[in-house]
């Protein structure tokens, strides 16, 4: 975050010193892009905050802890794909999972799908790439997450 702030600040200043007109054009372009997706982002955040509130952490722990075999991996993959949880919440949650006896494989699948697969953000992704490509990327990532989980489970 500090890095991004520093990089943006420095680039903005440098850009302004070299070419005012270009800078204004760039900033305008950036803000226009941001405003273009703002309503979509807000809708996603509304849905995410409602679901995350209705499904509390201990429910997720119980759900994922119920099975450590193939069924557990499947549940983890589904839960991770649907949920939209920021990284700084995902890692502490994963640590709780491990401590409550959830296997490494299931935890790894949950984290990876959480990070790579987004069903809630799918409409937004489709706006950029088209719905077919968005679905394909998410499906491939889902399969990839299961592979990652199985390998981690075998090596831990």
């Amino acid at each position: 975050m500090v890095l991004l702030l520093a990089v943006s600040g420095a680039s903005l200043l440098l850009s302004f010193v070299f070419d005012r007109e270009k800078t204004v054009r760039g900033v305008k372009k950036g803000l226009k892009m941001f405003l273009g997706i703002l309503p979509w982002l807000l809708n996603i955040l509304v849905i995410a905050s409602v679901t995350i509130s209705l499904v509390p952490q201990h429910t997720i722990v119980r759900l994922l802890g119920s099975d450590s075999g193939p069924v557990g991996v499947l549940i983890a993959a589904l839960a991770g794909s649907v949920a939209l949880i920021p990284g700084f919440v995902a890692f502490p949650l994963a640590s709780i999972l491990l401590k409550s006896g959830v296997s490494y494989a299931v935890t790894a699948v949950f984290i990876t799908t959480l990070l790579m697969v987004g069903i809630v953000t799918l409409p937004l992704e489709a706006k950029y790439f088209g719905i077919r490509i968005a679905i394909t990327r998410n499906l491939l990532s889902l399969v990839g997450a299961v592979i990652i989980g199985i390998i981690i489970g075998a090596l831990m």
Partner: protein
Amino acid sequence: MKNLFKNLVLSEYILIVLFGIALLISRILNFETGITIEHNFWMFITEMITFLPLMFVLMGLLDVWIPKEKVERHIGPGSGIRGMFYVVLLGTLQAGPLYGAFPVAYILWKKGCGIRNIFIYLGAFSTLKVPMLAFEIGFLGLKFSLLRTLITLPVFIAIGYIMEFMLRKRNFTVNQPG
């Protein structure tokens, strides 16, 4: 007034407005679930609002300053392993959730980035983050975090190759929404 109301109902902002009203009502009635939802919503909003506008401004600047030929030469379709290295580096150094990567992917595409590298970038951005790694190690241990990083890297590179293979004969584009 009537027109404003009509425009609002038909706009993309209708959900957020209804959501705001619902939160207000649950505050007045002291409805516990509503208050939890509001708390979580602010958590998400702070995560988004702190970095996304900056990132978009940065993308806008990149768009006006960086010539297409330069980007294309380094991470374009024929850029090979070095190009992959660059997009992985770019993705891992940035922070933020997956949806923050889409606008960057749009700019990269516009500047001539190859299909494979677009999806490798998305994979790197979403799963591997240098700013997050220390945090992950703290919670999940060094072995787990390193293993996850080392195994995830080839997986999303493979996804990049598969996407490229499937899309190379179609006219793939990345659009700017809105």
